[in-house]
């Protein structure tokens, strides 16, 4: 299969029940690809945010695509609470593994290194820890005076999904300083990318772009999608569409309004 594909073919490459990791709202969220996933009717996803989700999470949850969710928070930021997420939790429609930002970064870093777990400070005495039977507390084996410390199992997502301003014909993807996208891609088995533009010049040929480039070895497929983050923004390219985000919040207050929004925005199944 060619590395370069269409948006809807890209969505076909996400099997039901996959563990999918998505970036936070400030960092290149592939909203067009999320809408394509909803269009394809993906089911029972195990959805992870690295580490906070916004509209992408609310969309997938509201569309019934999510079985379990792991995140440090789901929020629409200044605009308010994420309506489909809040309702799904309150009605027990999804299972949430509540986490904290650095725990998700750390579990992905463990996977990056190919180690089974990593320790993290904090957490002790919190209800976040109390509700995570998959986390363990041990005494520091090197220094008995340093006290208890939490161990987090590595998280290896099946698929990382990201958007990027630029990719090249070799499959290298430029992400600039958004290094959490690199951590996600390193940790995941494969990464599906939407890019604003695909250029002929190899991004690795120039150090100025190479340092901010995810090399093609991590990349499973790339689709060229303009405004792939809309209605979120892409730093340096376009701002969030605040009117549309406000409109989304208004409509998504009810499930039927949410479904109307999906239809109006091309995510009909």
């Amino acid at each position, binding site marked *: 299969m060619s590395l370069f594909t269409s948006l809807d073919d890209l969505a076909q490459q996400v099997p039901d029940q996959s563990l999918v990791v998505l970036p936070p709202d400030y960092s290149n969220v592939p909203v067009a690809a999320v809408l394509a996933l909803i269009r394809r009717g993906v089911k029972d996803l195990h959805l992870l945010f690295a580490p906070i989700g916004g509209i992408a999470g609310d969309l997938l949850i509201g569309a019934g695509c999510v079985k379990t969710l792991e995140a440090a*928070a789901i929020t629409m930021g200044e605009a308010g609470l994420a309506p489909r997420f809040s309702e799904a939790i309150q009605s027990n429609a999804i299972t949430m593994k509540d986490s*904290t930002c*650095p725990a998700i970064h750390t579990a992905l870093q463990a996977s990056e290194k190919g180690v089974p777990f990593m320790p993290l400070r904090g957490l002790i005495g919190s209800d976040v820890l109390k509700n995570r039977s998959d986390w363990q507390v041990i005494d520091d084996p090197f220094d008995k005076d340093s006290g208890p410390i939490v161990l987090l199992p590595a998280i290896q997502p099946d698929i990382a999904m990201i958007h990027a301003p630029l990719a090249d014909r070799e499959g290298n993807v430029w992400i600039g300083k958004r290094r959490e996208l690199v951590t996600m891609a390193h940790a995941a088995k494969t990464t599906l990318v939407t890019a604003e533009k695909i250029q002929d010049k190899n991004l690795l040929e120039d150090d100025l772009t190479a340092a901010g480039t995810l090399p093609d070895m991590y990349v499973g497929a790339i689709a060229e999608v303009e405004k792939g983050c809309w209605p979120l923004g892409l730093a340096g390219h376009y701002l969030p569409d605040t009117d549309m985000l406000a409109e989304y919040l208004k409509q998504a207050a009810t499930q039927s309004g949410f479904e109307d929004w999906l239809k109006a925005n091309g995510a009909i199944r």
Partner: protein
Amino acid sequence: MTCNQDEFLICTIASLLESSRHVAVGMASPVPGSAALLVREETKGQINALRLSMIGGDANNPFTDGGRELFDCSGQGRIDTFFLGGVQIDGQANINLVGTGQYPNMDRRFPGSFGSAYMYFVVPRVILFRPEHTRRVFVPEVDFISAPGTSGKGVYRPGGPYALVTELCLMMFDRRQKRFRLTSVHPGHSIEEVLDNTGFEFDIPEQVPETPGPSDNRLNMLRSKISPEIAKTYPEFVSRVFDTAD
């Protein structure tokens, strides 16, 4: 000069930052961000110059190693002051950012714990900022502990709660007593009003002064120099707060 409530709270927080060296400001925090920008401007070029790292956007955000860098820096002790809030906060300074009711299918679900379950432990001075001062926020016991106010012996805990700033008052937290102490009450409000609207017990010293308002210099600097700077991260906040001032 008169000032509005946001300006007053910005300047109240600023007065808590005067001995900080590196302040980090998390997501969706325009008031703490403005306070830190103000103190950075006031201490520019001096020996006590304040360093500020804001993660709410690209402006004033020095991080180049992804979302983890703030936490890695904090774990190393490079950051001495941070801000947290809470859906609920109790008298032991336990904070709840997850929701109200019985976890997990809560009556009202809020976004989640963010980085609190870590930052509260490792950053020496955490300032709790929660403008709404009501008994639904300041409860006897939180429904979910996103992060505990204090820890038992043996738990690595260089960080923790330092102060609490609300629309009514300023409290400081005593980690040994595990209690808040009322420090000052904002102009136009009273100790009785604070008591009526707080669901937990706290210490009240014999003398509780009024929280001092900002000097004209500070207020002028906030309006002229800081508002365009914070607008780079929070444009809607600036048009709401500063355009109506004066």
